[in-house]
């Protein structure tokens, strides 16, 4: 992971040097600009994540058991109890946003209906591990670096060309491909962090079995739920299943591998 992190830093350093050279920005301005860019992405991302699923506060009166479990897990993991929210997402799901000390965990109503208490605890422990390990911040930082490098690549093309239609198209395409290239490294870190969060969740509750069962139950439930339209669209996506490109551009490792590791 240190190597992957160093590669990401190298991408950022090259982009920073280009900005300093081409736009004559001093180093402090590049650094302040980068921090502001990532900070705004973090703030907007958190707000949008909660808004996109219509998350509502889950009061202690409504779910005392859940609150008690989150409180106990947070204490064991050495973090402040995060804000607990609920949303109707149409599928069993849960995610964490924010940082250590100001985290939020959102669970879907469908998840609470699908899983038993122990399995829900496994899922909560996994999400709390993400907050403790600052994985959300890491992903925002990774996406920030990828976006900065892509924007710099785009401007480099635009500023060195004739500004004809081919140049504009080339700038857009190079920006997208550059972002994809940088994100390959961010995704590698993300997949590794998923395994770490699984391990931390298992350590917090003493066993990986509940989380493994939860993943198994949810992935079994997902089978056969694809509509005919989904099947038609997915038939075209020949590189979107598990395989070379899909594996490289995935935030999560395959569920089967996670279950296998949790049961080891």
């Amino acid at each position, binding site marked *: 992971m240190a190597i992957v992190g160093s590669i990401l830093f190298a991408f950022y350093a090259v982009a920073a040097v280009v900005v300093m050279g081409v736009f004559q920005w001093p180093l402090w301005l590049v650094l302040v600009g980068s921090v502001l860019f990532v900070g705004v*992405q973090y703030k907007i*991302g958190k707000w*949008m*994540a909660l808004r*996109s*699923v219509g998350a509502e506060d889950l009061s202690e009166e409504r779910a005392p058991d859940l609150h008690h479990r989150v409180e106990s897990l947070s204490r064991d993991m050495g973090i402040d109890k995060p804000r607990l929210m609920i949303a109707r*997402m149409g*599928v*069993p*799901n*849960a*995610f964490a*946003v924010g940082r250590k000390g100001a985290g939020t965990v*959102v669970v879907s109503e469908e*998840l609470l209906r699908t899983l038993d208490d122990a399995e829900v605890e496994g*899922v909560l422990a996994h999400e709390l591990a993400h907050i403790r390990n600052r994985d959300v911040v890491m*992903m*925002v*930082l*990774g*996406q*920030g670096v*990828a976006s900065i490098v892509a924007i710099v690549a785009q401007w480099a093309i635009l500023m060195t*060309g004739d500004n004809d239609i*081919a*140049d504009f*198209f*080339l700038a857009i*395409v*190079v920006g*997208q*491909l550059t*972002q*994809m290239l940088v*994100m390959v490294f*961010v*995704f590698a870190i*993300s997949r590794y962090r998923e395994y770490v969060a699984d391990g931390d969740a298992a350590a917090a509750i003493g066993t990986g079995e509940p989380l493994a069962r*939860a*993943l198994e139950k*949810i*992935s079994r*439930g*997902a089978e056969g739920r694809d*509509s005919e339209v989904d099947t038609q*669209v*997915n038939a*075209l*996506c*020949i*590189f*979107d299943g598990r395989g070379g*490109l*899909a594996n*490289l*551009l*995935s*935030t*999560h490792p395959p*569920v089967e591998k996670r279950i296998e590791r949790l049961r080891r």
Partner: protein
Amino acid sequence: MADVRTLLAIVLGALLGLVCVLAPGAVVRVQTAGRRPDGTGGEYGTDTVSTRWKRVVQALGIGCLLVAAGLVTTL
């Protein structure tokens, strides 16, 4: 003689177009990772992307291929 930048635009544009058509989920993940929670188009523990967004990206991919084809005619 063909302009190198136009040739690059054609080749890379076609490449991006193909990636968008054949792996739209991956393209959406590249744009949304760190900005949106994972799996809202799928299930917990996955990073599945909703069919609607895959279609949008595939349409953009076809657009890319068309622009690349259009640039070929200018050579």
